[in-house]
């Protein structure tokens, strides 16, 4: 078994302008996703949604504090899931099921120190 972090990158403007019923749909999709991970042969270890990058603060080189995200991109990191899966194919099956209608996800293996 290995751990993978699934990073969700989406267009923040689309969320900012989304109608309340769209938000409701998206939350419902995430609930369905979470319930379905076991069925894909993986285990959900954690996950969170993040506040938008307008609330981000970056600290460079351990001292310089700046307002905003570390890297400005059109599609910003907006949330993540941490999953345990036997291999990349399983992790990718989970990644495909992650709701991300305004963007996509990146799958990163978690480094193991033994």
């Amino acid at each position, binding site marked *: 078994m290995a751990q993978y972090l699934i990073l969700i990158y989406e267009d923040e403007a689309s969320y900012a302008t989304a109608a309340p019923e769209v938000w409701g749909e998206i939350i419902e999709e995430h609930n369905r996703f979470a319930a379905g991970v076991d069925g894909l042969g993986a285990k959900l270890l954690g996950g969170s949604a993040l506040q938008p990058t307008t609330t981000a603060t970056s600290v460079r080189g351990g001292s310089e504090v700046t307002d905003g995200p570390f890297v400005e991109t059109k599609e910003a990191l907006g949330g993540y899931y941490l999953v345990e899966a036997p291999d*990349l*194919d399983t992790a*990718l099956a989970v990644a495909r099921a992650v709701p991300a209608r305004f963007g996509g996800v990146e799958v990163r293996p978690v480094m*193991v120190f033994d």
Partner: protein
Amino acid sequence: MTADPVPDASAVAAAVADAHRREWAFVLAATVRVTRDLDVAEECVQEAFATALTDWRDTGVPSRPGAWLTTVARRRALNVLRHQGVARRSLPLLVEDDLAPDPADDDTGDGTHGYPDDRLRLVVTCCHPALDRPAQVALTLRLLCGLTTAEVARAFLVSEPTMAARLTRAKKKIAVARIPYRVPPPTELPERVDAVLAVVHLLFTTGHTVPAGEELVRRDLVERALQLCRMLRTLLPRDPAVAGLLALLLVTDARRATRTGEDGRLLLLEEQDRSRWDAAAVAEGVALVREALRARPPSRYALQAAIAAVHAEAPTWEATDWAEIVALYGVLGQVWPSPVVALNRAVAVGFASGPAAGLAALDELATEPQLAGYGYLPAARADLLRRLGRLEEARLAYTEALHLTANAVERAFLAGRLAELG
């Protein structure tokens, strides 16, 4: 194992080279099962071939070289594993959780040497969609065809250190991200085979029309692509897309000898000596096309092969069934929408219904962004304009095509056409 009478050094070298070409993928795939590490497996297989070079001089060439090499490589792998502690391992072991029991030395005589045939595992791992296309291509040539890093670098016109870095990164990703050494389940297999076919097709087209440089056909890449495609056909005998690609490669390559004249000049289909096309390759390809077209919808390779087959079966250029070719391009455009397909269809329309109709079809593509900078578009336009007698416009179009083409043989052709216009 029975052995032939003791051969001389050159016969042994030839036998080893032949085994390298035929058996490398099988031996490596069977050794990866033991090592679960691609680099260690490669080293052991290389050593097995080196051992063959000396041992076969004493013992003769074994009746089944693949079995001999597999036994030696796997024995070597077990030794390495015994002596190399787990702590010294640089990369995690490959994931392979669904292995059937290893029949090892059980000699079943079924052509698999008693060893499991893991070549499909190896090829779908090399062409995993999580690897980018250059990495897939490099791994396939290195691990399935047994080319050295230097040879792979040369085939793709990059430096050896660049290619070595590409291979190292790809192998590291396979191990660290845990790309499994596994044949995917039937539901996912077609998609994964598609990626493998795309790699084989790219190898063939790269070899068939070298993007830059002097020689039109880089023979070794074409041979490797054909060999890989035949291997896939053996591994997936009922897959229509595999049949379609093999058909396409065979029928296209059947014309190889006639594609350039004695002076190296590019010859059009129109000018080629059809009696010198490889009739056996065409016949094999045409039989495969029939099989491949039975799938619904047919694969893009099957349709491309069908188009190539219409050309191959026409006794003369004039007798070409252009209406059939236009129709096939139409279906191809639905299965695999691409501006290049539309361009080829327009060219076919130019022969089926005359250059004015062809030009009208071509002009619809003039603003297609994907064709901007594509040399075949102005070249096709130039040819239609020439046939319509609009020579000044044809001259401009040939000049534009020349600017966009790097292949020396194709450039010479275009320059020749331009000169003919005076």
